């Protein structure tokens, strides 16, 4: 019952943040940061299993692994950016949070370029000249 652990941890962390926010807002922010990291680390093992199964299925289906790897990378970047941006937003720095999200979008776009190029090429091949 991992969910009980996660919910309990979230409630306790929220309580501690509420207590600390009145006196030490900077430490309250660090507590919420740590709580987010711990909750993610609790479910990391499950993600490893899920990614493994997805990779095996893709191999069995004969899909080019480059696509799957791009997909996984995009998911990872999106998760990390969301984590950082949400922490910045909690600390009251909405503008930094939007910059982080913008940077993540740019990086994801660059990462998706090979796939987009391939789609363009196959479309061009279909068009009769």
């Amino acid at each position, binding site marked *: 019952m991992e969910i009980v*652990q996660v919910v309990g*941890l979230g409630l*306790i*962390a929220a309580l*501690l943040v509420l*207590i*600390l926010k009145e*006196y*030490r807002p*900077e*430490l*309250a922010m*660090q*507590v919420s*940061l*740590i*709580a987010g*990291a*711990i909750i*993610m*680390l*609790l479910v*990391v093992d499950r*993600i*490893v299993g899920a*990614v493994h199964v997805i990779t095996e299925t893709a191999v069995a289906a004969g899909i080019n692994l480059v696509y799957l*790897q791009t997909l*996984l*990378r995009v*998911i*990872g*970047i999106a*998760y*990390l950016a969301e984590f950082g941006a949400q922490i910045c937003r909690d600390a009251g720095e909405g503008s930094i949070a939007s910059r982080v999200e913008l940077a993540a979008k740019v990086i994801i776009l660059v990462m998706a370029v090979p796939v987009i190029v391939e789609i363009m090429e196959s479309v061009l091949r279909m068009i009769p000249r």
Partner: protein
Amino acid sequence: MNAVNIDLLFKIAGIGIFISVLNIVLRQAQKEEQAQMLTLVGVVIVLLMVLQLINELFSSIKTIFKLF
């Protein structure tokens, strides 16, 4: 591993409460500079602890999603 992690949360919250109490005491004793220094040191110590865990999280995310 999980127990250590959750200990870290309580440790940081404890440090925060402890520092705010000491801060109030120092303010009452008219030692504003020391109170300021104490706040700074507390934040740095907690930041070091937080950084270790964040590093752990980021490296596990990196290995899972193959972000090298």
